[in-house]
């Protein structure tokens, strides 16, 4: 075991604040490059025009330091805390919420969180609470990943508890059906995160974590990489296209994460992500 390293949670707050702002202003390079590449392959003139607008929009947001999209999202934080870290100076989760509060305030980001969802739906006015997923990992570092998750695409996501007999064909059909029904709603071209296995809460987390991969990356397991290729081809054959106006570019990529499941179960989830796929990681 290494020496214990102290990390003041004030550093966490500062890092989260910076992540909120920069994630919302700067489209990741992998997504930007994928949108540019799609302009070359898209057959629909309207689709090419939409893709050109999205590239120009990313350029404007980065140059003017304004949000890529007015829906600056629910702040989802994946925190990996090294087991040789001692967090000092206050409550770790409170420090993350404070970083979100400062980032969404100082960065002129939209506050999009409502409390009492079933009734009052009052805006919490500071975009808190953040959604926090913490895991303990080896080492003496703290790694924070922020995903700014917009509502329109999240609303098109799905969860299915399939029968094991439905197999891969059942899973693939459910993914394609989810994208097909979503149509123009989630701001295509989308990125599709698919979770397979685990339990009801874990499969949705797998689907969300799948979205953290770089667009264009290949899964290290060739079996899963082939499944992803198959789904991307089927989804892009739907004809939905950029903004649902017709075209070949319905999705930029499909990512799958899987884990073992109960012998009686076959959980699967699809987390739909718009083209404004905003996420960024920092290590303390």
């Amino acid at each position, binding site marked *: 075991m290494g020496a214990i390293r102290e990390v003041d949670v004030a550093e966490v707050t500062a890092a989260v604040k910076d992540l909120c702002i920069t994630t919302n202003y700067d489209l990741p390079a992998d997504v930007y490059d994928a949108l540019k590449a799609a302009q070359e392959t898209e*057959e*629909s*003139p*309207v689709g090419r*025009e*939409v893709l050109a*607008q*999205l590239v*120009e*929009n*990313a350029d*404007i*947001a980065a140059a*003017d*330091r*304004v*949000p*890529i*999209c*007015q*829906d*600056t999202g629910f702040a989802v934080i994946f925190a990996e805390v090294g087991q040789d870290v001692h967090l000092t100076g206050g409550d770790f989760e409170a420090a993350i919420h404070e970083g979100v509060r400062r980032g969404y305030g100082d960065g*002129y*980001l*939209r*506050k*999009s969180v409502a409390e009492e969802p079933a009734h009052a*739906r009052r*805006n919490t*006015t500071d975009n808190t609470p953040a959604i926090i997923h913490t895991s303990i990992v080896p080492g003496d570092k703290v790694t924070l990943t922020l995903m700014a998750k917009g*509502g*329109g695409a999240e*609303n098109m996501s799905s969860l299915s508890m399939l029968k094991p007999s439905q197999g891969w064909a059942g899973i693939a059909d459910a993914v394609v059906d989810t994208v097909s029904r979503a*149509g*123009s*709603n989630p*701001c295509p071209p989308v990125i599709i995160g698919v979770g397979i296995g685990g339990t009801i809460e874990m499969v949705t987390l797998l689907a969300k974590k799948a979205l953290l991969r770089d667009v264009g990356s290949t899964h290290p397991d060739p079996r899963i990489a082939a499944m992803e290729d198959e789904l991307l*081809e*089927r989804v892009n*054959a*739907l*004809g*939905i*296209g950029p*903004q*649902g*106006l*017709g*075209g*070949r570019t319905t999705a930029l990529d499909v990512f799958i994460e899987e884990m073992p499941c109960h012998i009686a179960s076959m959980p699967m989830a699809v987390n739909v992500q*718009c*083209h*404004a796929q905003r996420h960024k990681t920092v290590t303390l």
Partner: protein
Amino acid sequence: MAAKKITTPLTDDVVRSLRAGDAVEITGALYQARDAAHKRLVALIEAGEEVPFDLQGAVVYYMGPSPAKPGNVIGSAGPTTSGRMDAYAPLLMRHGLKGMIGKGLRTAEVKQAMRDEVAVYFAATGGAGALLARRIVGNEVIAYPELGAEAVARLEVVDFPAIVVNDCHGGDLYEEGRGAYARDV
């Protein structure tokens, strides 16, 4: 594709001239309203009271902006998913609303109301909020400031780019465009 230049408020003649797939550039006033504002507007109409802007020929923009930075007219300002306003849209059309700007699918009821009342649904590019904000030259909150990003605002736009998705003749670009590019695998 050359865009048709149109101005608001919209007349029936202009609405009838628009066809699914037409690119347009809109100049004039748009009324910003989304979920919470629509709930209140419809409650006012149902109670027989006045809504806070003239609905005759009006175009509503389903949008909730990010806060404006100092010196800017508005923050990022792209469309939100229109389907959440489907429950409210037919009543507004019956009271004079002529145009809606958003993104995403509408129900059969909304599309029927567009035929019956001579109204049009435009899509703006979702996720292009920084680009679209540059076409907004005026921004005045006229109702429900307590709703923050969900307040009703009167926006002045110049050459605001959009595309006709549903026209008043039954045309539907989402269906037609998808059909043209779908293929078997």
